[in-house]
């Protein structure tokens, strides 16, 4: 079958993918672009470890075919980590004890990034809802929730 050429924006840069449009976005990101901060936890969109931001929205890259990515704006942890808000979240995660084995954390950071981009001073429930698609087996979530609150306070300067 013929390879398709798919253009999209990745971490702020225009890029092209040439290949099978059914290739999973996660494989393209990890293996073609070397963005291994995107983790595969379940391969079925259940665990959130492979979360990326597509056109401003949190999605799981393991169930997105490249054909759906044409013209999209994709951000991974590698692009978010040095943004102002991304760095605040990551620092807060480190200070707040949010990180244990770390495998879910890049996805968790992206979920937090989307939440804090959309909401200021989110409630505990809103935070828990926002990360409910990001499964963590280590932390029991409390310190992740606390760390997101910490990030929110810091970016508001309080």
């Amino acid at each position, binding site marked *: 079958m013929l390879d398709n050429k798919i253009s999209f924006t990745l971490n702020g840069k225009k890029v092209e993918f040439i290949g099978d449009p059914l290739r999973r976005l996660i494989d393209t990101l*990890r*293996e073609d672009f070397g*963005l*291994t*901060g*995107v*983790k*595969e*936890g*379940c*391969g*079925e969109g*259940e*665990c959130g*470890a492979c979360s990326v931001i597509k056109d401003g929205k949190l999605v799981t890259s393991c169930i997105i075919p490249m054909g759906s990515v044409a013209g999209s704006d994709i951000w*991974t*942890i*590698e692009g978010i*980590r040095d943004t102002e808000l991304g760095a605040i979240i*990551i620092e807060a*995660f*480190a*200070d707040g*004890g*949010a*990180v*244990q*084995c*770390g*495998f*879910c*954390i*890049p996805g968790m*950071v992206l979920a937090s990034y989307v939440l804090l981009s959309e909401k200021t001073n989110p409630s*505990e429930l809103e*935070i*828990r*809802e926002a*990360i*409910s*698609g*990001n*499964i*963590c*087996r*280590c*932390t*029991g*979530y*409390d*310190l*992740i*929730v606390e760390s997101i609150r910490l990030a929110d306070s810091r970016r508001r300067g309080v």
Partner: protein
Amino acid sequence: MAATRIDDKIRRSDALSKARGEAKYVSDYFFDGMLYAMMLRSTEARADIVGITHPVLPEGYYFITADDIPENGVNSLHMIGKDWRCFASGDVKYVGETIGLFVGPSRAVLKSLVENTKVEYAVKEAAVSIDDAIAVKGGAILPEKDNDVMCQLYCQKGREMDDVFKDADMTLSETFETGFQEHVHLETNGAIVTEEGDSYVFYISAQCPFYVRKSVAGLLGLPLDKVIVRQTVTGGAFGGKEHFPDVLAGPLLVAESKIHKPIKLIFDREEDMEFSVKRHPSKVIYKSAIKDGKLIGTKGTIYYNCGAYLSASYVVLQRGVFHANGVYDIPNTYLEGYGMATNTFPSDAFRGFGAPQTLFAIEMHMSHIARRLGIDPADFKKSMFIKKGGETVTNGHVVEEVMLNDMFDNIAKESDYYRKSREYGYGSGRGIGVSFYNHGGAFTGNGEQAIIKAHARLKKSGEKVTIEVGSTEMGQGFQTSLRKIAATVLEIPIEDVDYPNPDTSIVPDSGPTAASRSTMVVGKLIERCAIEMKERWNEGDFSVEKEYEHPEGFPWDQETFRGDAYLGYGWGAAIVELEIDRRTNEVLVKGVWTSHEIGKAIDELIVHGQINGGVIQSLGYASMEKMENKNGHFKQTSMSDYVIPTSMDFPKQYYHIQENPYQFGPFGAKGMGELVFNGVDAAYVDALERAIGKEVYKIPLPPEDIEEALENA
């Protein structure tokens, strides 16, 4: 930079690299010319292999089987026993047993090779459950045996049971069951093998690099040092990467000896669910004698479903038996434990290591006795607490002050336990439940002294110090805790202490990262190394290495299982409050309160995270984590049908840490990784029983099983 002190609030050393997505897990390694591997596995629980037909291999593809093991090698993974075969040969003993390994450049091609390989079986009747094994269904699984008892032991404390039951004014006999539990470490199992010089090198997600080395070297008849194991950043383990990585490493090593190129094997989630070790399902029968409101004797019969190979099962069973009296000083006890061989995937280590099953059973049993006596379960349990010097089921003694009363007072006050216990009563739809538990730190008995003989080393170069130990970071925070211990003793900033992931060709064997032993044992070794290094600080660059020393005065006989099984326990008390939707049986947990005594927290934030995580795993175990096995096949095969808790399932936890410095641990610390899993399940079920006004005898309890419990009661 200022010198680090033990109570400083510090950042985990691995937090930033993980949160930034820079930490490299095994799946993130790519080598030039790297090939991939995929397993061909048994689809039958018990069968003879009649024939294997695979498609013609395209160029550059290989099919590796037991036939590729050289003459001076043995087809065996050397775990504790040597029964687990690297490749099934002649017959298969469980679904998922490795038959062969396809290796080649394209994973798509490998997948189709696996799918198009035909294994012809002569299928035999399988034994899957504990009851099947007791009935020796399909004939004995173990060679040269006429039953399916893989391992067994017994313990007696006090008088003969028959005698004790004659004194009883009330008896209660109950059977409790617990199910399989899957680890669901977010990172699936994976390994890469390659060659460097005349050595084989593994990059592997594992708890115990030295276990891997010992397990696989014999496949090729190699001396141990010709196999080098480098642990990669490990994305959770919980016991699931204690022995199981051997099952990946073995076939990879045999393949490497033929192919001589880097080979990568990463399980996808389905493989990791269906074809990996699980927590042992259990069946625990207690018969108790009660006299004048006191429990005077308990006879326990304990069955664990071990699967087809031993792996760690005997040790798991021992721990189950040794924890079967819970935190109670029951004056007369007879306990027998049976590890049953079945045709299921071998059960293996999982946080708690056999203790959670019996602790669940004894906690429920104690609550049920209390109910019959008309006493609040908390009060009945408190009246039976073991104390310092109290005799354990192995005729040893508790070495530390037992602080459960203080711990319970703390959480009872925080949760308003007694008021709620009275108000909610039995069957109101609301319930508050309580549990107590412990966990013996480190290896059982004289294991640390006789088997492990752990070593640890500190290396000084300039003003920097490197920790060289075989212990691994898998998320529990040990790399940070250990650096903190070393830095504090050396009075240097923690930033000047490095602790890379272990490489077996560099670090000494510190024993497995398991059994809640790392802080207590390896932490102590590093403390001793650091004390000496501190004294000799001005000698330039040098290393200090120490070996484990067993404290005097704690006898243990491994033949009879008598003596001091553990030199220190962690202790826990938990309260859970919940309400049940009477229409749907959905349970809403309103509060979780715990207190844990772990000697001393080396790092409170890390301990806090461990408590939260262990507690929620235990709540998942009690409520939603259902893994069934039908005819040898696990029924739940993905993260959508085997569900584990999300951020929305349980509320923010109250936690309390009880200080009680431990004489043999670094800075007074004991183990805690497993303790925090061991008991909240029972508090949850106690609360649930009170809410629905019925007793239940098994976990997990999703809504449909609560329906069944209501129906059957």
